[in-house]
């Protein structure tokens, strides 16, 4: 409006309205479908607000009562379950992915059929998690084909009840997470390794470095930011773990609720229409994720910028 002062400013304002217009749908939809719901979720968390039968109790303001109650329930256990199951899947995932990414990019090794391997290892990532969990449930159930085969091969004298044992259930969920995500991680790490300046390897080769030395002394330090990115995004993904354990255990998280994750707990509260408690669980998750976001922010900004990094590497490559 008052932009006539300098010609530069006038140019900016001539097109500025288009900028606002172009990003408006995003922000309108974001505000209606995400921001307002997020605020009301946090708001509800301070209220006693649930449905008992057909009667709705509340909303009555109770301050921090939901949070106090939350930490007296099994919430810490569920957070522990979530992190443990995530970790059991993540450790082999990062090791295997790093190994595969190193092999695929190793020119001396020059593996054939890379297109095929990459296609196959990424495939499980696209599968409906609920269908995958259903398949595992059907295969590993007490009288499913896995047990049928193990017994008829004489390995077990009677069916092993995978889903009745804590280790079996957690192990299956972790294994599924591993299988679904190692291909994705491999491709991310490969892209990172290929972004490393090849001149560094040439120089190292002239100096007589072995493949191992080059991997540990050049590749790993240079892709550390992406490794950190993989770690944190995987952790945030892990905190969201829901479909697989929900379907595999039919929502119960049994045996002994050892497979109940944070989101399953949230889902249970929502299903019983206890909006106050569900709000409190969401808020706790929100705070954890916000902390992780800041961590990512610091990792990425310490390393000269977000998007600029890629192009800088591209110039070398």
């Amino acid at each position, binding site marked *: 409006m008052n932009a006539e002062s300098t010609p530069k400013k006038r140019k900016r304002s001539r097109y500025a309205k288009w900028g606002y217009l*172009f990003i408006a749908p995003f922000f309108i939809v974001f505000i209606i479908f995400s921001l307002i719901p*997020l605020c009301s979720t946090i708001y509800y968390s301070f209220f006693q607000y649930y449905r008992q039968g057909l009667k709705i109790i509340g909303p009555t303001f109770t301050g921090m009562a939901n949070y106090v109650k939350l930490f007296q329930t099994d919430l810490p256990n569920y957070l522990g379950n979530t992190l443990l199951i995530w970790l059991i899947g993540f450790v082999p995932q990062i090791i295997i992915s790093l190994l595969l990414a190193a092999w695929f990019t190793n020119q001396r090794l020059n593996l054939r059929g890379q297109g095929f391997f990459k296609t196959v290892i990424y495939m499980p990532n696209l599968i409906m998690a609920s269908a995958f969990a*259903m398949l595992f449930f059907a295969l590993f159930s007490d009288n499913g084909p896995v047990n*049928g085969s193990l017994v008829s091969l004489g390995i077990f004298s009677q069916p092993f009840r995978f889903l009745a044992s804590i280790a079996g259930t957690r192990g299956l969920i972790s294994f599924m997470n591993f299988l679904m995500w190692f291909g994705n991680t491999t491709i991310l790490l490969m892209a990172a390794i290929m972004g490393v300046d090849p001149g560094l390897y040439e120089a190292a080769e002239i100096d007589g470095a072995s493949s191992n030395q080059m991997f540990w002394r050049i590749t790993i330090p240079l892709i550390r930011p992406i490794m950190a990115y993989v770690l944190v995004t995987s952790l945030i993904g892990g905190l969201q773990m829901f479909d697989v354990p929900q379907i595999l255990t039919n929502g119960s998280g049994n045996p002994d609720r050892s497979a109940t994750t944070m989101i399953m707990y949230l889902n249970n509260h929502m299903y019983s229409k206890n909006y106050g408690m569900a709000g409190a669980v969401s808020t706790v998750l929100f705070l954890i994720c916000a902390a992780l976001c800041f961590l990512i922010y610091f990792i990425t900004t310490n390393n000269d910028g977000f998007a600029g990094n890629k192009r800088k590497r591209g110039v070398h490559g």
Partner: protein
Amino acid sequence: MNKRSKSGQSGLSAARAACYLVLAVLCFLCLFFFYMLLINASRNTYQIQQGFSFLPGKSFVVNLKNLLKNANIPVLSGIYNSLVVSALTALLASYFSALTAYGIYAYDFRFKKTAFTVILLIMMMPTQISAVGFVNQMQAMGLRNSLIPLFLPSIASPTVFFFMKQYLDSNMPMEIVEAARIDGSGEFHTFNTIVLPIMKPAVAVQAIFTFVTAWNNFFIPALLIDKADKKTLPILIAQLRSADFLKFDMGQVYMMVTIAIIPVIMIYLILSKYIVRGVALGGVKG
């Protein structure tokens, strides 16, 4: 290939053999379950309980017929709902993310930096945390048991936006836009006829990704939909899981899972090159 050194040739082939072995094991793990799924979809309950078989049975058509006849599991409407939701999600997410990314890339306005930072911040927030408010709000808006809340929010897809923005940063010359302006093309017209075609590869990759994500989505649909004719495939699968298994026809279970994942596998096999490239492109954020 020229880089292969002369020394340690035998060590190299041993290492290569080890690599192929590990890769073969991993591929076996990835493919085995899908193979088993297809085989079991063609066998009857009795055969399935006998254990694995590497040869298909003869009950494929029977299982399919039984599943389609099963009144408790409306598979056909499930496929239809899933298709509608996924296709509209892919369309809205890729078009509006491209629009938002171009808005931030091409124009200079006061809240540009703030808008970009806000989108990056919400990118990492799980959708589940606002679920309580979302479900209540949809109830208040009369959108329970409607497909609208399953695809409309995808207009605001931060990850898709981020991918598009990165693509624009490295592939979009502003000179073309300026030339179009001189020729009298309106801003919106320029976006649709010039910018969008330049962004086609990014739009295609993200359309595939959002389609697959929407097809597989379970958490929010399960909270919003309880009418049988509005259920999407993941909800129907969850429903199968809670059925009484001892009385259930396992052939139908495997057939249902097959139907739920086959379309995605087909899309993937046709487009895998672009998908793999897309992951690599989108992930390099270090």
